[in-house]
C-alpha cells in the first residue's frame, strides 16, 4: 500500500510540476530580467527594467516567413517605439552571420537593429524555435505574451493582431487577451545542429 501511495505521490508531483512548467510561459511565470546579445561581436545588455514593455522578436535573414512579415515588423517598431516599447530583434540562427543580417536589414529597409544570439543562450532560455516568434515582457521581466505576430503569413486576411493586442493591453495596464499563440514558421538553426 505504501508503495502505491508513494508511486501516486510521485506521479502527482511530476504531473503538477510539468503542468506548471507548461503553463508558465503563458501565465507570465517565465522571467527575463537581463540578457546579453551581440552586435557585430560586441556585447549588448538588454534589461527589461529599462522599459515598460520589452519585445523580443526572433527573426531570420533566410526565412521567407520573416520576409513576409518584414513590413509588418517595421510598422510594429514604428508604431510602438514611441510608446516606450523596447524592441529586441534577435537572429539566433547559427547559419546566418552578422554580415548576412546586415545585408538583410538593408534590403528590407528595416530601421531597427538585429542582434545575434551567438550561442543560442537566449533562444534556449525562452525555448524559442521558430521565426518570427514574439516574446513580450513587462518591466519586472515577467513574460506576458508569447507567439505569433498575427494570424496571416501573407498578410491578406488578418483576423487576429495578437502581438498588437497584447502590446495595447500591456501599455494600458490591462490583462493580455490571449497570452499564448502559435504559427507556422522557420526552424531556428541551433549552434549544435550547424556543427
Amino acid at each position, binding site marked *: 500500500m505504501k508503495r502505491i501511495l508513494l508511486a501516486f505521490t510521485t506521479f502527482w508531483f511530476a504531473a503538477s510540476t510539468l503542468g506548471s512548467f507548461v503553463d508558465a510561459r503563458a501565465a507570465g511565470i517565465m522571467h527575463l530580467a537581463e540578457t546579453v546579445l551581440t552586435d557585430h561581436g560586441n556585447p549588448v545588455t538588454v534589461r527589461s527594467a529599462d522599459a515598460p514593455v520589452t519585445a523580443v522578436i526572433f527573426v531570420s535573414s533566410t526565412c521567407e516567413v520573416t520576409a513576409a512579415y518584414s513590413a509588418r515588423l517595421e510598422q510594429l517598431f514604428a508604431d510602438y517605439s514611441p510608446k516606450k516599447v523596447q524592441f529586441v530583434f534577435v537572429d539566433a540562427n547559427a547559419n546566418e552571420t552578422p554580415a548576412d543580417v546586415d545585408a538583410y536589414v538593408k534590403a528590407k529597409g528595416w530601421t531597427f537593429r538585429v542582434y545575434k544570439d551567438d550561442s543560442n543562450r537566449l533562444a534556449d532560455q525562452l525555448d524559442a524555435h*521558430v521565426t518570427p516568434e514574439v516574446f513580450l515582457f513587462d518591466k519586472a521581466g515577467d513574460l506576458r505574451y508569447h507567439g505569433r505576430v498575427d*494570424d496571416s503569413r501573407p498578410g491578406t486576411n488578418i483576423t487576429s493582431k495578437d502581438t498588437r493586442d497584447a502590446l495595447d493591453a500591456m501599455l494600458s495596464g490591462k490583462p493580455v487577451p490571449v497570452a499564448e499563440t502559435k504559427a*507556422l514558421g522557420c*526552424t531556428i538553426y541551433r549552434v549544435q545542429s550547424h556543427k
Partner: protein
Amino acid sequence: MNIFAHFKTVLMIISILPLNQAGLKRIIASERGKVVIVNIWATWCAPCKAEMPALASFERQHAGQKVKLILLSANEQEEKKAAETFLERLGFGSLAYIKQDKDDQQFINAVDPTWSGALPATFVYDRSGKLVKSFLGTVDMNQLEALIKTLSAR
C-alpha cells in the same frame, strides 16, 4: 517527338489534394498496419526543400513495404501550383496533400501539441496509428531508418 519523354512528363504530374486535421487523422487510421511518416513542408521553407531529395529517395527505397510517406504542404491554397511543381520535379510518386485548415494554430496543435509550428517537421506513427516520434527541424535520415526498422519489426 520522343514519346517516352512525353510519358515521363505525364506520369510525374502531381495533384495535391486539400486535407484538414480530421482528414489527416482518417488517412493515418486507414493506413493501420503500416508505419506512417507525415512530413510537413512548404515552398517558403528552404530546409524543407533541401531535405526533399532524401525523402524522395527514402520513398523509392521503401516502395512496396509497409511504410507510407505522406507529404503535407503547409502552403496556402493559392500556393498549391508552386508546391505541385516542386514535387513533380523531384519525381514523388505518392499522393500529396495541402493543409486546408485556415487556422494554423489549430492545425499545429491537432498534429502535435508539443510542436512549435517550426518547419520542416516530420511525424512518425507506428503500425497502430500512434504518434511515436516527432522530428522537429531537418529529419535525420539515419535515425528515421533505424526507427522504421524498429517499428516494422514490432
